[in-house]
C-alpha cells in the first residue's frame, strides 16, 4: 500500500545532513578504473580552471611520477611543502595536515586518496586527513581507483588476483559532492603502458603484469562505470525524494548481517554492504553474544572485533545482542527495527550437532516470516592477516592425574564398601568420583575419568576379574550406560560452571559500574569527581588514567594523571586537544594516531564534551576486545555525567558567590559611606562653628567643639586603619613575619597603645611566667589584641581581663597557646558567636557605637594566617570572652650566647 506521507525521520535526517553539508567542504573525487587513466591530469586541469576563476587553490599532494605533461600543469599552482617525518631512521615526506589547516585554502588537491600515511602521522590514512580538511570547510579534489573501494575490495581481488591493502571506506565516496569518472578504453591504456606513460614502481613490477591484462582492465572498467552509475542513480533518487516525486516512500530497506568471529564473516559483511549500497538501505551488523557460554578465545575475540570494525567502516550500524539462541535474538531485533533482509553465512562444515538441533540458518528460515533470508557462501579471505594463534586448551597434567586418583579412590571405596556383588552401588561410587572431577577440573579430565572408571569397573568388578574381557554382554550395556551418564554429567557440570563464570563476570562488570557511580555520587567538586573516577577506572580497567580539560586559555591540559600515560606530555596534550575539538576518540585501537600507547576517549555528557579521558591499559592490547571497549565506553559515560553534574554545580556556586560578593560590596559601600560621613559631618560642623566669628562662641564651647573634632578625627582614623588593614590582608599583601616572642611583650605593647581609650578601666593581665615563647608576627598580633580591646571597650563597661595559658587540648601538636580577652559586658546575643567575626557585622543594638564592623574580621584573618583559630563565647558568669589560639610549631632558636662576651663585661657591683 503506497504511503503518501514522507517519513518524518527521513526528513529530519536529511535536514541535519544538509545542515552539516553546508558547513563542510565539498569533496570531488576523480575516479578511475586503473592507474594511468589520467586522473591526476584531469584533476589538475579542473584545478587550473578554478584558479583562473580566482579561487584560492593549494596543491596538498600531487604525484607527478615524473610525467612531464602532469608536471607542466603544476606550474603556477601553490604547492604545500611536505612535512618530513623520521621513521626508523628513514626520512619520509608526508602531507602536512596542520600546515594545510593553518593555510586554509578554498580548495586543496589531494592525490591518491587511498594512500597510507607514514607512521607518526596523525591519521593512518590519507582519506582521514581529507575528512578533517572537509570538516574544516575546505573543498577537496582527490583521486582514486576502483580497486581501493572497500566494498569492492574482494571483488577486485577475485578478478585480478591482486589483494589491495589500501582501501577507502565507501562512506567517503558516498559523501563526496561529485564523482568525476576519468575513463580510458583498455586498449588505449595498454598502449600508454607500452609507451611507459603509466607509472609503475619497481617492487610492483611483477604484480602489475598480472594486473594490466586486458580482461582485468575490462572488468575493472565495468566496476568503475557501475560504481559511478550507482552513484548517479542514488543522486537521482535523492533528487526525486527532495522533490517529493517518488511515491514509494515506504520505509526503505533495512538489511541485517549476522557476524561471528569466523573469518568467513568478512566476505559476508562485504556482500551485505554491496546489497545495502545497491538498495540504498540502512544496514546492521549484528553479533549475538551467547548468554551462557565458555568465554571465547583471545584469537576469536580479536577476529570478531576486526569483523565488526570492518562492518562499521563500511557504514553498518554495529549491534551486539545477548541471548541464548542466536536465531531468536536476530529475529526479535529484526522485527523491532523493521529489517527486511537478513544475510547469514552458509555453514561450512556440517556439524554433527546440526543433525539433532536445527542450525542457525534453519531456525532463521523457519521463523523469519516475511523477512527475506539470504544465505551466502564465502571464502575465508585474508586469513594471513589474522594471527591464527592456536587456542590453548587448558589440558593440564595435574587435573588428569587428579582424575586418575579419583578413579582409584572410587575403586578402593567400592571394593571396600560393596565388593563385587553390589555392582550398581559400585557404579554409583564411580559416578560420584566423575562428578567430583568434572566439577573441579572441567570437561576433559572428567571424560578421562569416565573412561578410566569404565576400565577399572571392568577390570576389578566384572567377571572374569583382573582382565578387560567381558563374559556377560549385559555388562557391556552397563559400561555404555555408565560412560554415557558420566559424559552427560560432565557436560552438565561444565555448563553450570560456565554459567556461573559468565554470571560472575557480568556481575563484576555491573558491580564495577555500580561502584563507580556510587563513588562519583559522593564526590562533590569536579576535582574530586575526577580523582575518584580516575582511581576507580584505574582499578576496574587496570590502566593508567589521565583526565584532560582545557585551561583558562583554552589549551587542553592534564588535570589528573596517575601516574602518567607513558607518553610525552606534549603528545598527550596534542592528542587530547584533537579529541576535545573533534569529539572523537583517538589513540590506540582507533583510526586516529593508532601508534599512540594510550587510548583517548572524549567524555561526552548531555551538554557537550566535559573532558578527555586517557587510558594506557596493561596489558597493552587489553582494549582490543569489544567487551573491554564497551566497558571503557560505559565508564567514560558515567564519568562524563558525574563531571557535568559537578561542573554545573560549581558554575551555580560561582554565580551565587558572585552575587554574594556583589551584595557585600554594596553593604560595604553603604556602611563605609555612612561611617565615614558621620565623623566628617561632626568635624565640619564643629570646625565651621569655631571659625564663624559672629557671634563668637565662648571659651568653654570652643574647648568642647575642639575636643569633639579631635575625638571624631581619631574615630575616622580607626575606621580608615581597619579598612586599609582588611584590604591589605585580603589582597595578600601582608606577609606574616613570625618571630619567637614572649606574649607578655605584645600584650604590653597593645595595652600601651590603648592607654588613652582604656582610661578608667581596670585591666587585669595574667600571663604565667613559665609560658614558652610563641612564634608570631608582633605587629599583627598586636593589632589583634588592640582590636579585641577596642571591641571590649566599645561594647562593655567595667573591668577587662587578658590572660594567656598553654592550650590544654592535645589536638594541636606540639602545642598551642590560648589567649583570651574577657569583659563584663552584656555578652554576645545568642547565636551570634560566629557571626561577629563576619565582615561588616555589627551588633544590632540600639545606640551602639559606630564602626565598620571590620575589627573582628581582621582578627580572624590574622589569626588564620598564623594557623590559629579565633572564636567568641559568653562567660557563664556574664560578659563575653574572645579567645584565640596560636600554634607553637617548630623549635625556638638556640640561645647560646658567646660566653666570652658575658665575661668581658665588667661585673656590676654586688
Amino acid at each position, binding site marked *: 500500500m503506497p504511503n503518501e506521507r514522507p517519513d518524518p525521520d527521513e526528513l529530519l535526517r536529511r535536514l541535519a545532513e544538509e545542515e552539516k553539508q553546508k558547513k563542510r567542504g565539498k569533496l570531488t573525487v576523480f575516479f578511475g578504473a586503473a592507474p594511468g587513466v589520467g586522473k591526476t591530469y584531469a584533476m589538475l586541469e579542473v584545478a587550473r580552471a578554478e584558479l583562473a576563476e580566482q579561487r584560492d587553490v593549494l596543491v596538498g599532494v600531487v604525484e607527478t611520477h615524473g610525467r612531464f605533461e602532469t608536471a607542466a600543469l603544476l606550474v603556477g599552482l601553490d604547492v604545500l611543502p611536505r612535512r618530513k617525518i623520521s621513521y626508523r631512521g628513514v626520512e619520509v615526506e608526508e602531507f602536512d595536515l596542520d600546515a594545510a589547516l593553518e593555510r586554509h585554502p578554498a580548495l586543496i588537491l589531494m592525490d591518491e586518496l587511498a594512500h597510507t600515511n607514514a607512521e607518526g602521522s596523525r591519521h593512518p590514512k590519507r582519506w582521514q586527513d581529507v575528512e578533517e580538511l572537509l570538516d574544516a570547510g575546505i573543498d577537496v579534489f582527490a583521486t582514486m581507483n576502483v580497486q581501493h573501494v572497500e566494498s569492492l575490495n574482494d571483488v577486485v581481488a577475485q578478478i585480478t588476483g591482486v589483494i589491495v591493502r589500501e582501501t577507502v571506506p565507501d562512506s567517503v565516496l558516498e559523501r563526496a559532492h561529485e564523482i568525476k569518472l576519468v575513463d580510458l578504453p583498455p586498449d588505449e591504456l595498454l598502449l600508454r603502458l607500452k609507451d611507459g606513460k603509466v607509472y609503475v614502481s619497481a617492487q610492483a613490477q611483477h604484480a602489475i603484469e598480472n594486473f594490466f591484462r586486458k580482461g582485468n582492465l575490462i572488468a575493472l572498467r565495468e566496476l568503475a562505470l557501475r560504481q559511478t552509475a550507482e552513484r548517479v542513480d542514488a543522486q537521482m533518487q535523492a533528487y526525486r525524494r527532495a522533490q517529493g516525486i517518488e511515491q514509494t516512500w515506504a520505509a526503505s530497506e533495512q538489511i541485517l548481517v549476522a557476524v561471528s568471529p569466523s573469518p568467513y564473516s568478512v566476505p559476508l559483511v562485504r556482500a551485505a554492504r554491496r546489497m545495502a549500497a545497491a538498495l540504498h538501505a540502512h544496514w546492521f551488523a549484528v553479533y549475538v553474544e551467547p548468554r551462557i557460554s565458555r568465554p571465547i578465545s583471545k584469537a576469536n575475540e580479536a577476529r570478531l572485533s576486526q569483523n565488526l570494525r570492518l562492518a562499521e567502516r563500511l557504514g553498518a550500524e554495529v549491534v551486539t545482542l545477548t541471548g541464548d539462541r542466536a536465531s531468536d535474538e536476530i529475529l526479535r531485533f529484526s522485527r523491532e527495527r523493521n529489517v527486511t533482509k537478513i544475510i547469514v553465512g552458509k555453514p561450512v562444515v556440517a556439524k554433527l550437532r546440526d543433525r539433532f538441533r536445527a542450525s542457525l540458518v534453519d531456525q532463521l528460515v523457519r521463523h523469519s516470516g516475511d523477512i527475506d533470508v539470504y544465505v551466502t557462501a564465502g571464502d575465508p579471505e585474508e586469513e594471513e592477516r589474522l594471527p591464527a594463534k592456536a587456542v590453548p586448551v587448558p589440558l593440564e597434567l595435574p587435573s588428569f592425574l587428579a582424575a586418575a586418583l579419583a578413579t582409584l579412590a572410587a575403586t578402593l571405596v567400592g571394593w571396600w564398601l560393596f565388593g563385587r556383588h553390589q555392582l550398581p552401588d559400585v557404579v554409583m561410587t564411580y559416578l560420584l568420583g566423575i562428578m567430583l572431577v568434572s566439577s573441579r577440573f572441567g570437561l576433559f579430565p572428567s571424560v578421562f575419568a569416565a573412561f578410566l572408571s569404565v576400565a577399572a569397573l571392568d577390570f576389578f568388578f566384572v567377571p572374569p576379574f583382573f582382565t578387560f574381557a567381558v563374559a556377560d554382554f549385559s555388562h557391556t550395556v552397563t559400561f555404555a550406560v555408565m560412560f554415557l551418564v558420566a559424559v552427560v554429567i560432565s557436560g552438565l557440570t561444565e555448563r553450570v560452571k560456565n554459567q556461573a563464570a559468565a554470571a560472575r563476570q557480568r556481575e563484576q562488570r555491573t558491580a564495577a559500574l555500580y561502584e563507580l557511580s556510587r563513588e562519583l555520587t559522593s564526590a562533590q567538586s569536579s576535582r574530586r569527581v575526577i580523582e575518584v573516577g580516575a582511581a576507580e577506572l584505574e582499578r576496574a580497567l587496570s590502566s593508567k588514567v589521565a583526565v584532560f580539560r582545557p585551561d583558562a586559555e583554552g589549551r587542553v591540559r592534564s588535570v589528573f594523571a596517575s601516574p602518567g600515560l607513558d607518553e610525552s606530555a606534549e603528545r598527550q596534550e596534542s592528542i587530547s586537544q584533537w579529541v576535545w575539538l573533534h569529539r572523537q576518540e583517538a589513540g590506540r585501537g582507533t583510526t586516529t594516531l593508532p601508534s599512540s600507547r594510550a587510548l583517548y576517549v572524549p567524555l561526552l555528557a548531555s551538554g557537550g564534551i566535559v573532558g578527555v579521558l586517557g587510558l594506557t591499559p596493561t596489558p597493552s592490547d587489553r582494549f582490543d576486545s569489544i567487551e573491554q571497549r564497551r566497558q571503557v565506553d560505559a565508564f567514560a559515560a558515567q564519568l562524563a555525567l558525574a563531571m557535568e553534574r559537578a561542573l554545573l554545580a560549581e558554575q551555580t556556586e560561582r554565580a551565587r558567590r558572585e552575587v554574594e560578593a556583589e551584595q557585600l560590596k554594596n553593604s560595604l559601600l553603604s556602611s563605609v559611606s555612612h561611617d565615614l560621613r558621620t565623623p566628617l559631618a561632626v568635624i565640619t560642623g564643629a570646625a565651621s562653628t569655631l571659625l564663624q566669628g559672629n557671634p563668637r562662641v565662648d571659651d568653654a564651647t570652643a574647648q568642647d567643639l575642639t575636643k569633639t573634632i579631635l575625638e571624631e578625627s581619631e574615630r575616622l582614623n580607626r575606621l580608615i586603619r581597619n579598612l586599609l588593614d582588611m584590604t591589605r590582608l585580603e589582597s595578600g599583601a601582608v606577609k606574616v613575619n613570625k618571630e619567637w616572642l614572649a606574649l*607578655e*611583650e605584645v600584650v*604590653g*605593647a597593645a595595652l600601651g597603645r590603648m592607654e588613652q581609650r582604656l582610661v578608667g578601666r581596670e585591666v587585669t593581665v595574667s600571663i604565667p611566667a613559665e609560658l614558652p615563647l610563641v612564634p608570631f608576627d608582633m605587629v599583627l598580633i598586636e593589632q589583634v589584641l588592640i582590636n579585641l580591646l577596642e571591641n571590649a571597650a566599645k561594647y562593655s563597661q567595667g573591668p577587662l581581663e587578658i590572660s594567656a595559658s598553654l592550650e590544654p587540648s592535645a589536638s594541636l601538636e606540639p602545642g598551642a597557646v590560648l589567649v583570651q580577652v574577657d569583659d563584663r559586658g552584656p555578652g554576645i546575643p545568642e547565636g551570634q558567636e560566629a557571626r561577629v567575626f563576619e565582615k561588616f557585622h555589627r551588633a544590632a543594638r540600639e545606640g551602639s557605637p559606630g564602626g565598620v564592623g571590620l575589627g573582628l574580621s581582621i582578627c580572624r584573618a590574622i589569626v588564620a594566617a598564623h594557623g590559629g583559630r579565633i572564636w567568641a563565647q559568653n562567660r557563664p558568669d556574664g560578659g563575653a570572652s574572645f579567645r584565640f589560639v596560636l600554634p607553637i610549631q617548630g623549635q625556638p632558636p638556640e640561645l647560646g*650566647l658567646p660566653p666570652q662576651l658575658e665575661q668581658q663585661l665588667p661585673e656590676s657591683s654586688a
Partner: protein
Amino acid sequence: MSEPAIVILVIEDEAQMRRFLRASLTHGGYQLIEAETAEQGLVQAAARNPDLVLLDLGLPDQDGLVVTERLRQWAKMPIIVISARGQEQDKIQALDAGADDYLTKPFGVGELLARIRVALRHAAKTSEGDSQFSLGELRVDLGRRQVRLADQEVHLTPIEYRLLTTLIKHAGRVLTHRQLLREVWGPNAGDQTQYLRVYMGQLRHKLEQDPSRPRYLMTEPGVGYRLRTEE
C-alpha cells in the same frame, strides 16, 4: 628672648601638613624653615644648618631614607622621621640610617613637641652627661654601676646592665633592634634579635612592677625599644 630661637627644618610635600606644623611649632616657640621636596630640603639644610629636621618619608622626588643618609654624611643634627602606619620596615631603615626618632601619622601636637624636646636634649648632651639617671622609682648610678628600684638594690647581669645603660643613654628615643644589638653585643651580634628579646624580658621582670604592662621599658612593635622618660 636671651638666646636665639631653635630652627627646625620641615621637609614635607603636603601643604596642609606644613600648615599644621607651622601653626603648632611656631606656637611652641620654634623657628620654621619649610621645604617641599627632598632636593629643596637638602639645600635648605646645608644653607641654614637647622637644629632639627622633621622629615616625611613619603616625598615625591626621593626616598626619605636617601635624604637621611645624605644628611648624615655631614650633619649631626637630630632627624625625626614622619611616616604613615604600616611602614615599619621604612622606619627601621631610616632609624638604622641615622634618624633619631619617628612619628606615625596621625599624631597629636603634644607627642610631636615631646619628641622634639627629647631629640634636642640629646643633641645638646655632648659629654657622657650625668652619672645619675632617675625615672619613677628607678635610680641608676652610672659611676658606681648601681641600680636601685624603690630604694632596693637590683642585681643585674653584665649584659642586662649594659642594655639598660644603652637605653638610658638614648632615653626617650626609639632604638632599633639592630642598634641595640650592635651597641650591647658588639658589631658581630648580627640580627639575633632573640638575644635582645630574652634579655629585655629579664630586665623587665627585674625592673617592672608588672612586666606585661611596662612603665619604663616600652616595646615599639616591629621597630625596637624605647626607654620612657618623665614626659
